[in-house]
């Protein structure tokens, strides 16, 4: 009882800390960081855009890492982590494209341009979508884990392209735009706060997935024990 209360207390503490971090990051981004000369208020989208872009990439690497771990260990726990990373990564990638479009409209006067880094960010989103699509089509848990792991690993090989895009291809996307120190602090705080939020959601979603996986097994066990109490079981010899 005491350990359950302790864990509930620590979970509340973590939630409060993350909420405080998000509020702090939002406050610094809105109120403290100065308004950029050229783009004005629209520049502040960058604080979310960079954070979710970084999480979209990280999510994919985490997903691929868990996929590799599953293929080696064949423990469905790793697949649950991979699924959690895939779902959250997809959300982050979608937000990257949306915030990127908003920023592009303000900066370049167009909602979209076929610039290499934007293109590879779209590829990443499509890979996430393919991964989730595959998962939705397969019923058997190990089969699903195995095939989606293959897709995740293939997709992860695309991630370096996203990171290196501005070095390998010429494009108009800013690589490391010059920023005032307060802007840099706001950016770092946003990245830290959203990363913490991602981490907690990652763990929570994984727990949810694990429970969803265990439920049918528990139901089967209950059915089996009810059936076995209803009639005597045949004598079995496990070793022949």
């Amino acid at each position: 009882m005491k350990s359950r209360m302790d864990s509930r207390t620590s979970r509340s503490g973590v939630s409060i800390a993350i909420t405080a971090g998000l509020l702090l990051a939002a406050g610094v981004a809105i109120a403290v960081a100065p308004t950029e000369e050229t783009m004005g208020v629209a520049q502040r989208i960058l604080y979310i855009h960079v954070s979710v872009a970084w999480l979209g990439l990280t999510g994919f690497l985490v997903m691929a890492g868990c996929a590799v771990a599953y293929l080696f260990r064949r423990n469905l726990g790793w697949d649950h982590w991979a699924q959690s990373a895939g779902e959250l990564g997809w959300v982050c990638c979608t937000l990257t494209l949306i915030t990127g479009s908003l920023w592009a409209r303000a900066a370049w006067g167009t909602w979209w341009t076929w610039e290499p880094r934007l293109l590879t960010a779209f590829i990443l989103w499509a890979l996430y979508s393919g991964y989730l699509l595959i998962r939705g089509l397969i019923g058997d848990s190990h089969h699903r884990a195995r095939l989606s792991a293959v897709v995740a690993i293939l997709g992860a090989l695309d991630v370096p392209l996203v990171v290196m895009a501005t070095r390998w291809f010429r494009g108009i996307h800013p690589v490391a735009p010059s920023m005032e120190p307060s802007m840099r602090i706001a950016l770092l705080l946003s990245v830290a706060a959203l990363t913490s939020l991602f981490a907690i959601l990652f763990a929570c979603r994984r727990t949810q997935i694990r429970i969803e996986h265990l439920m049918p097994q528990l139901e089967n066990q209950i059915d089996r024990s009810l059936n076995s109490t209803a009639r005597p079981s045949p004598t079995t010899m496990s070793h022949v």
Partner: protein
Amino acid sequence: MSISIASIEMRGLSKALGDRLILDGVDVRLHCGECVALTGDNGCGKTTLLRCMAAQMRPTGGEVCWFGKNVIDAALKRRIGMVSHESRLDPHLTIRENLIFAGRMCSVSRPGLRADHWLDVCGMSARADHRPKQLSRGMCQRISIARSLIHEPEIVVLDEPFSGLDAFGTKWLHNLLRERTAGERTVVFSTHDPLCAESLAGRVLHLADGRLQEAGLAATARYSCPANEAA
């Protein structure tokens, strides 16, 4: 019958398909020269067990060994032949080409001659240039059996091999399997026919609830089967 080496050994074998546990901790040792019949109700997991035994399915837990070696080594597959209850012949090749391909893949010398020999054994020489779709199910089954034996494997696993065979085909397969066991080869087959199991196998194993039960020596014991219980 030589007892010392287990030609097939399965330790703690389990296999889950979806949320259903098909095999639950199966342990079995089969020795060289044994002929074993596997029986069980429809859907009890006989095909799954045989496919795991033949390394065509990866078990969820436990391991399968042939001649003391883990079956992960692909080259070991040369020592086993598996007959599924579907013929699995390539529909784009003639039956002779199917046999030659199998012989080549198993590094058989003179696969053409060997294929012709087996077509003769099957009584299908006249239809050597036919494609599987031009043949009956029983004929395809015979060719499938020939394909699994063309490289003279030491272990033969057959999944309901008598299904689809007429009286002549059944007798033909009966004699073929007797020959295999006489040559110190291990034969495992699944069947729904208790008479067939009793007449051919030296040992009968019954699969139920994911576990194997020893149904005893075929000559002296009756295994649990609805037909027998009714009698």
